[in-house]
């Protein structure tokens, strides 16, 4: 029998209310080296990605938010108690650093979508010959890519400027070649949430050329992965 692991937190001694987890399993509190983990027993080798399971995972992690800010585990984490204890022991310092980093905060997600036709407008070919048309097409691809990359960067910097004062930390992914050009995660202190929303609402008014998808508050999913951050910091792929 393996354990399905939802999240990790500090200073939690008991669950305030019964919570149902994956497949309706009872969620329990496991204490390891002073840290509290929410787990449930799981009989199987893999976790089905179903609507109910995904929502159950998030609901269990979210159930901690009234008491503290937990570090969520990724969906599908199945592990023996022995392996889990080994992980906690070997990553203790990194986990404590992460818990300190997210303490008192929540995550907000901002995705920005643009109209690619608008970005590429004005680059139509004026030539009619096949050779010239080919070269024009290549030119469009190169210049269009550069233009999109520059605009994506501009939008990312603009967003950061708009909310920077009320954000403790941010992570941004740029995708200039797609409609979803900017995917940003903002770590916001709870008492700053209202100010954050107001600043974001004001910013959105000023950019009618962009489409926004704002969601949250989330547990700090985007600020929990110590391994990925190690790879980012040290260029390991």
């Amino acid at each position: 029998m393996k354990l399905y692991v939802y999240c990790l937190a500090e200073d939690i001694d008991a669950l305030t209310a019964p919570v149902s987890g994956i497949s309706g399993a009872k969620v329990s509190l496991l204490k390891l080296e002073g840290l509290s983990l929410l787990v449930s027993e799981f009989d199987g080798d893999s976790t089905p990605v179903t609507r109910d399971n995904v929502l159950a995972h998030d609901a269990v992690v979210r159930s901690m938010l009234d008491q503290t800010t937990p570090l969520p585990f990724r969906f599908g984490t199945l592990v023996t108690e022995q392996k889990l204890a080994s992980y906690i022991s070997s990553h203790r310092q990194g986990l404590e650093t992460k818990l300190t980093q997210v303490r008192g905060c929540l995550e907000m997600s901002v995705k920005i979508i643009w109209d690619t036709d608008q970005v590429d407008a004005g680059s139509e070919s004026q030539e009619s010959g096949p050779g010239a048309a080919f070269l024009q097409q290549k030119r469009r691809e190169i210049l269009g890519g550069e233009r999109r990359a520059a605009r994506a960067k501009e939008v990312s910097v603009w967003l950061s400027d708009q909310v920077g004062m009320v954000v403790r930390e941010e992570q941004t992914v740029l995708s200039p070649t797609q409609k979803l050009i900017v995917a940003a995660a903002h770590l916001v202190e709870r008492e700053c949430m209202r100010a954050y929303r107001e600043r974001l609402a004001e910013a959105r008014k000023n950019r009618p050329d962009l489409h926004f998808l704002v969601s949250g508050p989330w547990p700090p999913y985007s600020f929990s992965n110590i391994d990925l951050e190690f790879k980012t910091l040290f260029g390991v792929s």
Partner: protein
Amino acid sequence: MSSPFDQVLIESDVEQLEQSDLSLLETLDHVLNRGLVIAGEITIAVADIDLVFVGLNVLLSSVETANEVLRKRE
């Protein structure tokens, strides 16, 4: 007293996507793509046909692709 965390608030001017689709898409994006990872200990199975359209698209992390798939479902 109600909790501010009872539900995820979604604000969007993205057309073509229903609120419930956006909510699930965002949840999938967070729980499948992010969070603490214990090396070698994540095994998932996309088994529920109802979720395949969102599951696959969240793995691609693309609203554009989600739009295309949702249009095909109509």
